[in-house]
Every structure is written in structure tokens, then in C-alpha cells.
């Protein structure tokens, strides 16, 4: 699958993918911030907090640290604990009434991040897998 020619394509798309992800994340941050601002300033509150276990597909220390920081930077979600073996984050969500739907949201961010950060991107198999098996 990865031939000599196969290294050229990722080398060309990598910078584009990184910039595209940065823009995507900036947009996410702004929309989440607007939602949080609205909730703070209006009398009614949609607040439904919870702490979810989030098994990662990130493998290197860099990927885990970056994802933990990105989650903490997004308004409404906060990384509370990191586990290395197996790679797991525990994430506090302010608007997360259902843990599985919350995990799906986090997984979407993780997929986009890995596709941008990894030189070869992520293949379909890795993208669909549900992280590691719980020990």
C-alpha cells in the first residue's frame, strides 16, 4: 500500500492537513465558546455534567498530550485524568447527558486530529475501530 511514490502524496498534503485542522479547531472553539457564553448569560441552563471514560487510538506521548490539551481548550470539556496503559482519557463534559454520545463527539475530534497530525493520515480500519479493548 505504501510504495515509494506513496510517500510523496502525504508529504504534499501534510502541511495542508495541519492548517485545515487548525482552522477546524478554531471554528469549534468559537462555536463552543458561544454556546457556553449563552448558557452563562441566560437564566435557564442546559447544564448536564458527567465524567466519561474515553479509550484512545492515540499511541505516542505527543498524540495523547495534544489531544488532552485540545479537549481542555474546547469550552465545555475538560480532561481530568490521563492513563497510559491502555491509553485512556477521563473527560468532564458540561453538556453531556449521555456518555456514549459524548464519547462519539470526542472520537470525531480525535479522528480529525490523527488524520492531520500523522504523516500518513489514518486508514479506514483505524478510523472505524473503537479504540483499544477494555482490559
Amino acid at each position, binding site marked *: 500500500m505504501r510504495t515509494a511514490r506513496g510517500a510523496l502524496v502525504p508529504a504534499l498534503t501534510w502541511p495542508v492537513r495541519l492548517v485545515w485542522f487548525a482552522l477546524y479547531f478554531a471554528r469549534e472553539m468559537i462555536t463552543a*465558546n458561544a454556546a457556553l*457564553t449563552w448558557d*452563562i448569560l441566560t437564566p435557564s441552563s442546559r447544564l448536564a*455534567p458527567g*465524567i466519561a471514560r474515553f479509550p484512545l487510538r492515540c499511541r505516542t506521548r505527543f498524540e495523547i498530550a495534544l489531544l488532552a490539551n*485540545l479537549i481542555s481548550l474546547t469550552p*465545555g470539556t*475538560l480532561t481530568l485524568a490521563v492513563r497510559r496503559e491502555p491509553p485512556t482519557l477521563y473527560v468532564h463534559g458540561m453538556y453531556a*447527558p449521555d456518555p456514549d454520545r459524548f464519547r462519539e463527539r470526542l472520537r470525531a475530534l480525535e479522528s480529525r486530529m490523527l488524520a492531520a497530525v500523522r504523516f500518513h493520515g489514518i486508514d479506514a480500519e483505524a478510523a472505524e475501530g473503537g479504540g483499544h479493548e477494555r482490559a
Partner: protein
Amino acid sequence: MNALEAMSWACMGLGVWLIAVAAVGYVRLPDPYSRLNAVTKASALGLVLVLVGAWMAEPGWLEAVEVLLAIWLLLTTAPVGGYAIGRALHRSGVPLGPRAGYDELHEDRRGE
């Protein structure tokens, strides 16, 4: 007043407004985790906007490097600080507050 100046004021105004909202959130939100959330994020984004606004008031290459360095430091340190405080909160047993649904970190800690 030219366009850049107007944008500078808009950025700084929006940034200050966000920090003010974070302060209101700190008072209004019911539990420590949500308060921490409001303060670390809204104020980080607010400060970034203030920095960008300040750069637009005095644009230049050297200033751009300075502002980018400041933004980079802010965006890498703010979440780490939030993480450290949040972790300390959970470790000292602070409850999640009203309407909390689940705490899987607590479940996993108990099993150890």
C-alpha cells in the same frame, strides 16, 4: 480611523467581553468543574483576542513574532493548568454538582 484600527478595537472589545463573561460564569455556574471550565477557556480565548487586537494597533514583523509566541505559550499552558486543578478537585472528592449523570473516573478508581 482606518479599517485595521477598527478591527483592533473590535478584537480587544470582544476579548474583554469574553473575560467578563467568564467572570460572570465563575459566579453563576453551580459546581467547581464547570466554573473551572468557564474561567480557563473563555479567558484564554479572550486573552488571545486582546493580543491580536493589540498587534493590529501596532502591526509589524517583530510584533507578530512576539504576539504569536505569547499566544502559543497561552494555548499550551492554560489547558495544563486547568487539567492540574481539575485533577486535584476530583482527587479531593469534590462532587460533580446538581444534575450530574455519571462519573466513570470514580467507578474506575474504586476498582483499584
